[in-house]
């Protein structure tokens, strides 16, 4: 039976509790986790999975973390920055949550980071904006998933060294997430001797990719970083256009949860992600089986990311003895978390709050009547700076549309 609280039942319960005479026992308040997610509009696909992931986690722990009861307070941001700000204020000021998981999108996170830092509210988010843990770090921020480029560095390494690609074209949406992913790939690929010949940037909303597909030629492979429902559209149009070059994908372009929507066009796509559904750890088995049972689909990085955030929160609470009032102690405990048995394998955090962990190279294959991503290589201990020196890395400009520049 789910004790997942909607706002409605939470308030009803509080109202009831307020009317009942409460014995003066030292009854500890439940720890409140606020979830900022998107449940309406085009981003709802990832947002709904995020809620499923954290709910799955809390169910697995019977809504008890470190001996304290846990409550989830869900807020729908609508996928726009102003809405996210308002919902964050709601969670912080009205619902008095102890920590926040989410939000989904980088632009949502950027809208609330100053406010949350002022309120000393710990945030565990999947949003991949690089500078959140690099050049403009938020001291209360923890990211257990990856920066935009963190999964692309190993992919570029693999492409250059093992697949021996020499020339590639990158194509990704024209917004920060796309720029940062492709920037990361670009740097490592060229440092390993390859060359990025052209970078294509279709707008986020592109019904027809043909004008871009028509410009792809004279290369060994295509690197894409599409997100949301765009990977589906892109791969279908790619196949229809008759292009046969191998496709390398970012973490969300071939996400495990998206596989059920793909057809044969996805077979052979090689992607790199922080999470892979076929990872053989006990916690991943338990998590994935629970997800299939509850929601009928294998989980992808959105659900896994939130499940893992739940584990991080639990580990931190165990360190602080269940206490959440001292925010400084809580964030210190959060950043000190280091786990081995998780759905993404072992990981820990660097001093800026970003994860150092395994990244998996997978190839999409057909097994029976389903598409699966099969892990073909694991890169351990990958940090957000790859093999570069941190100081040097931070001294460079952040990855953007024109950085690294395409060499003519």
């Amino acid at each position, binding site marked *: 039976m789910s004790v997942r609280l909607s706002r409605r039942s939470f308030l009803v319960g509080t109202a009831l509790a307020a009317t009942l005479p409460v014995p003066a026992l030292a009854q500890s308040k439940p720890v409140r986790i606020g979830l900022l997610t998107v449940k309406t509009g085009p981003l709802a696909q990832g947002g709904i999975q995020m809620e499923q992931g954290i709910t799955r986690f809390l169910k697995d722990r019977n809504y008890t973390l470190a001996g304290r009861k846990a409550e989830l307070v869900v807020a729908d941001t609508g996928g726009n920055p102003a809405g996210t700000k308002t919902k964050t204020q709601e969670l912080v000021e009205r619902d008095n949550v102890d920590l926040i998981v989410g939000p989904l999108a980088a632009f949502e996170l950027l*809208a609330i980071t100053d406010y949350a830092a002022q309120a000393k509210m710990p945030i565990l988010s999947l949003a991949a904006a690089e500078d959140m843990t690099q050049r403009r770090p938020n001291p209360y921020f923890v990211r257990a998933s990856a920066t935009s480029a963190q999964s692309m560095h190993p992919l570029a390494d693999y492409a250059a060294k093992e697949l021996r690609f020499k020339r590639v074209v990158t194509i990704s949406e024209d917004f920060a997430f796309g720029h940062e992913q492709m920037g990361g790939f670009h740097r490592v690929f060229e440092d390993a001797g390859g060359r990025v010949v052209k970078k294509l940037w279709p707008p986020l909303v592109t019904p027809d990719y043909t004008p871009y597909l028509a410009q792809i030629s004279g290369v060994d492979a295509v690197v894409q970083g599409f997100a949301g429902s765009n990977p589906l559209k892109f791969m279908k149009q790619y196949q229809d256009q008759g292009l046969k070059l191998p496709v390398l994908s970012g973490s969300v372009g071939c996400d495990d949860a998206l596989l059920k929507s793909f057809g044969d066009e996805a077979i052979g796509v090689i992607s790199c992600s922080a999470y892979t559904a076929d990872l053989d750890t006990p916690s991943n088995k338990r998590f994935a089986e629970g997800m299939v049972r509850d929601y009928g689909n294998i989980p992808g990085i959105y659900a896994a990311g939130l499940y893992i955030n739940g584990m991080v929160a639990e580990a931190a609470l165990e360190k602080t003895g269940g206490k959440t009032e001292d925010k400084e102690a809580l964030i210190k405990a959060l950043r000190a978390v280091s786990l081995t048995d998780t759905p993404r394998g072992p990981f820990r955090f660097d001093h800026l709050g970003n994860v150092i962990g395994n990244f998996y190279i997978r190839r999409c294959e057909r097994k029976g009547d389903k598409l699966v991503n099969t892990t073909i290589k694991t890169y351990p201990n990958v940090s957000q700076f790859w093999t570069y020196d941190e100081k040097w890395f931070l001294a460079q400009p952040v990855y953007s549309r024109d950085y690294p520049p395409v060499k003519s």
Partner: protein
Amino acid sequence: MKRLALVAALAILAAAPLWVGGTYYVNVASQILIYAIFALGVNVLAGYAGLVSLGHAGLFGIAAYGGAKLMSAGHGQVVVTVGGLAVTLVAAAFFATLSLRATGLGFVMITVALGQIVWGVAYRWISLTNGDNGISISGRPRPFGLSLASPAGFYWATFVVFLAAVASMAILVASPFGASVRGTRDQARRMNALGYHVWMIRFLAFLFSGFWSGVAGILYLYYNQFVSPQMVALTASAEVLLMVISGGTATLLGPIVGAGLVVVMKNVASAYIERWNFVLGAIFVAIVVFMPDGLVPGTVRLGRWGLAAWRPRAPSAVPAPGEDDGR
């Protein structure tokens, strides 16, 4: 009687941070006021001049982006506000010149196109607007040295601006210029024949409307301390228009009530109703169908009907439902 009610309403609004219960709700109240100013501005065009614009979010956004850019360049609060408003006025003049080439649906379509172009620029001209990452600013203004960092402080400052907006609207409406604006809505040809320069009247009304939209934009920038392309999307223009229509275009109170309705629905009700998008759409359909004048006139009508039904029937003439009681 009306004046007393007005003063009482303003007093209640002014004291809002004291009775509204929690800083979260004070913030919601600030948002309502900001959108009310925006809606009042749009109402000048849509209600009084009969020119419906679906591109005003573009002006709202230009003010906010202009202010944000000036602030990032290091200028002080006064320059930011004045500069932002100046840019908005120039943009409004440009919009007006283009849109006033047509009326009715043609006008609407031109404003849609202009709004979409502003949105496209905000999204893709990344070196100017930082694209979808938006621009963050730090700090709020300190008029006369008073800090606006707290929700209550910001609310009162917004309230002062709101009063100025309402006052200016009231003056406009009562003035001869206001009458001529309504004249161009009702009988443009006759106004022309009488010697009024219809285009210029509409143009000035557009500027006035654009000015207050810009003011709302700057307040929004200070409130959120963030601006992003979503502010200028078509849905944002549509939402403010819905605020105006749902409240009622013929009154000053209408846009304010409409702003309250939409803001509360989006921010507060969305916490309790999972399918709030659907409910929002349904409410608008219901309002447009059943209360086409808007909530305010519709409620007033309902109120009068209710009062008439409650009053004990005297043997002498009783005002029939719907019949004007002389006011």
